[in-house]
């Protein structure tokens, strides 16, 4: 009963906010807001997808850079060299990154001992390996000023905004679904005690693989959309360590392991970055750093938890 009720609210809330965000550009918000929100969507996607694997299973991944960069380049190369329609390159990018994830998973998830560490390292390795491969082939980057796509596509207003929005909500939906599903429970079990999970009959390997593939798929697509939007794909930038680091920070800041946390974290951090861009950049960054420390001290479990407990307090006071 309650379950059904809150399912309904959830769906309504999601679709409502989607509708709002979808409409925003046509309600004449400034183009800056459009492209800013776009970058927010991409960051949210990255944070949420990181959380799907690392937040839920506790397997720490430093590999988002690899998937993001590879996704971006997969799309750029397909579009520029093989002149494949841009829209088609998006799924291609997804396939490529998922393949990478599957390969890495096959290597690491099979090994029993020191799972966490080993996985962390292999993701670091994957990052540098993929970036080096790309650098050695398309080191000077690819300029996509003329994105090849079937003609009406480019005329769609705010097309990249829409794509990013769709992806963002897709990943939120997926993350939420997993959180509530059997898969989610398995992943939490794996995070708490992998051997016990095996002993109770959970196929840990498959579950981890699934989570990893979903996560990397989302990141790859994000990369492809980023490529089309930024129109200049350069290894140094799409393989920047930020794409590994910031999703982690965002998730932790928002509340790691919850499905809402990363969304909040991403929104907040991206906004802060915009704010500190103006004026005395260096001082702003110092302030930003101190602020992060404060957040982590006073909100040990992330912002989302603060919101939750705050809500509870209201409820309680309301009841009295």
């Amino acid at each position, binding site marked *: 009963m309650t379950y059904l009720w809150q399912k309904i609210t959830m769906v309504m809330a999601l679709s409502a906010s989607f509708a709002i965000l979808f409409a925003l550009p046509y309600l004449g918000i400034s183009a800056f807001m459009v492209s800013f929100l776009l970058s927010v969507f991409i960051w949210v996607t990255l944070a949420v997808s990181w959380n799907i694997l690392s937040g839920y299973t506790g397997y720490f991944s*430093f590999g988002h850079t690899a998937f993001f960069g590879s996704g971006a380049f997969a799309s750029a190369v397909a579009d520029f060299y093989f002149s494949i329609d841009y829209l088609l390159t998006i799924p291609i990018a997804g396939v490529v990154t998922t393949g990478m994830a599957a390969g890495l998973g096959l290597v690491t998830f099979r090994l029993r001992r020191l799972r966490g560490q080993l996985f962390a390292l292999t993701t670091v390795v994957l990052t540098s390996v993929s970036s080096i491969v790309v650098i050695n082939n398309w080191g000077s980057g690819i300029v996509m000023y003329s994105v090849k796509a079937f003609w009406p596509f480019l005329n769609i207003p705010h097309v990249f905004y829409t794509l990013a929005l769709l992806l963002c909500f897709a990943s939120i939906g997926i993350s939420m679904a997993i959180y509530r599903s059997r898969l989610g429970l398995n992943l939490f079990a794996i995070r708490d005690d992998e051997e016990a999970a095996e002993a109770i009959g959970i196929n840990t390997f498959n579950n981890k693989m699934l989570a990893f593939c979903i996560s990397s798929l989302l990141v790859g697509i994000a990369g492809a959309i980023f490529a089309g939007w930024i129109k200049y794909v350069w290894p140094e930038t799409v393989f920047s360590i930020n794409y590994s680091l910031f999703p982690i*920070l965002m998730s932790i800041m928002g509340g790691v392991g919850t499905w809402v946390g990363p969304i909040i974290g991403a929104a907040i951090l991206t906004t802060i970055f915009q704010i500190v861009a103006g004026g005395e950049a260096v001082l702003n960054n110092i302030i930003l750093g101190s602020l992060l420390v404060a957040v982590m001290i006073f909100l040990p479990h992330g912002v989302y938890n603060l919101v939750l407990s705050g809500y509870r307090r209201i409820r309680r006071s309301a009841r009295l």
Partner: protein
Amino acid sequence: MVSVTGVIQSLLTGTLVGGFYGLFALGLTMSWGVLDIINMSYFPFAVLSAYVAYVTVTSLGLDPFISLIFSIPSFFIMGILMQLFFNKFKIDIFRSLIISFALFVVVENTLTYVWTADVRRAPVGFLGSSFFIDSIYVPVGELIAFLIGVMIVLANVAILKKTRLGLALRAVAENREAASMWGVNYSRMALMVSGLSMSYVAIAGLFLAIFFPFTPSHGSLFIGRVFAVTILGGLGSVTGAFIAGIILGVAEAMAAILLAPSWSPLVAFLLLLIILVVKPSGLTWR
């Protein structure tokens, strides 16, 4: 095409340079493996130590190594303070990452504020030179860095084997709860370890100043390698990290001379991967 001397040369220089990577990773492996703290802030702190050396050389006109007299103690204290902070607020591994990243940002930008983002280079005299054994060259600075690394490793092994602290360290590295049951005063030991790690960082930073011209954001260049070395060496294993560093260095150097420099990191990392698949525990020598 490549002569024997070339290969030997690369082996040598690779080993020495790898020693520097190992040296750089010591701090991280200690704090990650023993304290469960992934301390990103070590990178800009290393650069800070580099600036200290820079000032010692340019303003005071002294030998860069003099700077250690100042930087090691102060870094040791900073490490202790940092750990006190982490203990006070019971920082777990996740939050340690974000907090130390915040510190990363603060320190790096403070450096930018003080010294500007401009490139600095400390004139290092003979440390930048090299001597020759027949046609093989041995860079002095790298050699010294390597030797210091070796000394630290040996000292560390001695500590682990002989002292009570060492016992405690091993116990904690194995299993923290158990260790605390056996009456290891974790928090005090943590202070010690954190202080040590920071002093290692100070040393690494000194060599940063000796080897390269640097900017406040120079530490970031090493994040990838240092993480790889740390994890490959086996978290908490100083010896492991150092050896992992050497493997990385040699692999890079060999690849650079046999294939192409632009491919060398790839070879190095693939090598790490292979080693891991063969020996998943990492090169844990405790």
